Structure formats: C-alpha cells, structure tokens
C-alpha cells in the first residue's frame, strides 16, 4: 500500500512508467536528490496525514523510504 503510493508519486514526478520503480531502486539512479526525497516525504505526510521526520535515517533506495513510512504508520 505504501510502496504503491510512493511508486505512483515518483512515477508522476519523473514522468515514467510506475513499473520501472521497485523497492530496490536507488534514488540516485532516478536522478533524485536529497531535497527531492524530502519533498516526496512531505507529500507522503499529506497523503497519510502523519508527520514523518527523516532524522538520522539513511534513505538511499525506494525501499528505505517505504520501510520508514510504514514504521511511522504503525
């Protein structure tokens, strides 16, 4: 559920096929920088109505972000 949402947001931002995005996809490979990840996180916050702080978490791949969001939603 979270992955699908994140993948859809990324696909929309990058204007690419959603099927190209997997849990293992690295943000760097998508040409996404740390500010883009922050922006994505803010959109996710809005979507799920929760506050998510990146804190010290390293978010390199789509899966890292999905895991972080899922942990905050529990």
């Amino acid at each position, binding site marked *: 559920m979270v992955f699908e949402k994140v993948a859809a947001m990324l696909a929309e931002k990058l204007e690419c096929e959603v099927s190209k995005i997997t849990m293992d996809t690295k943000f760097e490979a998508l040409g996404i920088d740390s*500010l883009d990840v*922050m*922006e994505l996180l*803010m959109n996710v916050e809005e979507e799920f109505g929760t506050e998510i702080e990146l804190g010290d978490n390293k978010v390199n791949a789509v899966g890292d972000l999905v895991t972080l969001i899922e942990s905050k939603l529990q």
Partner: protein
Amino acid sequence: MLKGKVAVVTGGSRGIGAAICKLFAKNGAEIAFLYAGNTQKAEETQKELEAMGVKAKGYQCNVADATQVAATVKEIVADFGGIHILVNNAGITKDKLIPMMKAEEFDAVVDTNLKGSFYMIKQVYPLFLKQKSGKIINISSVSGLIGNAGQANYSASKAGVVGLTKSVAKELASRGVCCNAIAPGFIATDMTETFTANEEIKNAIPMKRFGQAEDVAKLALFLASEASDYITGEVIRIDGGMAM
C-alpha cells in the same frame, strides 16, 4: 512590489523590524510579526499596519525556543494561508568585555540571534521547498563581519548568521529560494542608543551619520522583491561606509 505576499518578520514590533513591517505593508504585503514581550508596542504596530490596509497580526514568541517557534509558524500558516518571505530580525545584545561576560550571557545572545534564525528557517524550509520559491532575509551585523570590542557574543552570533545564510542559500538555490543577509552598521534604534549617543563613533563613519531603521527596510524590500531574484548567499553591508 509585494502584493499577494505574506511576510513573517521576527522582532517586528519595534526598531528595524517595525520599519521593515511598515515598508513591506506599504508595498502590499500581509504581515505576521513576532515579538518577544512588549505586548503594548506590538498592538500599536499591528494597528499601524492594519491602518495601511493590509492584514497584519502580532504573535508573542520567544524565537530562542524551538517549540514556541514551531507552534507560532503553524499558527501563522493557518491564519494567513502560507508564507512567502521570512525576515529574521529578532536580536538582543548583552555587551561586556570577555572577562566579565558570563557563559549564560554568551548563550542567551547566540540562542536568540543565531539559533532563533535557524529555528525559523527550519519551519519555513518545507513550505518554501514545496512552493519552489521564497525569500529569506537574515539580519546580521557589521559587528559579525569585523568584530567589535565588548560584543564577543553578539559578533559571534552575527558571524554565525552569515554562515547560516550561505548554507541555506546553497541548499535551496536549486528550488528558487533566495537567502541573503543584511549587515547593518550603527542604526539609531532603542537597542543601539548607548552607541548612537557617542560622537566619536559617529565620526568614525565615513558618512558621518547613523543609519535609520528605514534605510535597512529599503534594502530588505529589495531582497524580498523580484528585483533580487538572481541574488542569493549575499551579505550586504548598510553602514555608511564604516566597514569597507
């Protein structure tokens, strides 16, 4: 020049901050200003701004308190629907020679002047990032550029503001957000009255006069407007030539 914009000004009830609020309001901006404790002065300023035909509101907030800052910025966004310009102007002095300066006096000045600016920026950052625009103007000081005897705490905090400004500018430049600093010299306000009574200091200024809060406000207006869209990470002295 600022029609449709919402400006947040810290330390906005008097001195340089109030002059900035008034000039921004005159140019069409809606004004949310923060003040530390002088409620009467804040109410006066709010009334003056409202009389200029713009929406304006004062918020009591200690910028050195991160929790208060977060709550206040949230309140402003709810009241005004967004923020486009941030002016970090709130500042205090506790001037003493270093042997007499207590650690707490050093901390208090850094907490308000430097960390207060950081806390404010931290709150508007996501908003500006998302809207891909925004202007951040930090009030530094000539004292932060060239130092000043008796102002170790103040100078350090204002030099810190310069570093903060440049880092923010670099972080957000690709997102259309500008962050610049103003470094005033001796401006005649309540905060500087011990200096501005001094003829010797006046004579050390090439222009032989103290600046007015309105002089600083005009520069802030330029930095808040589209006229400065290609300027970021810059520190502009406004000091009658004192520190050149």
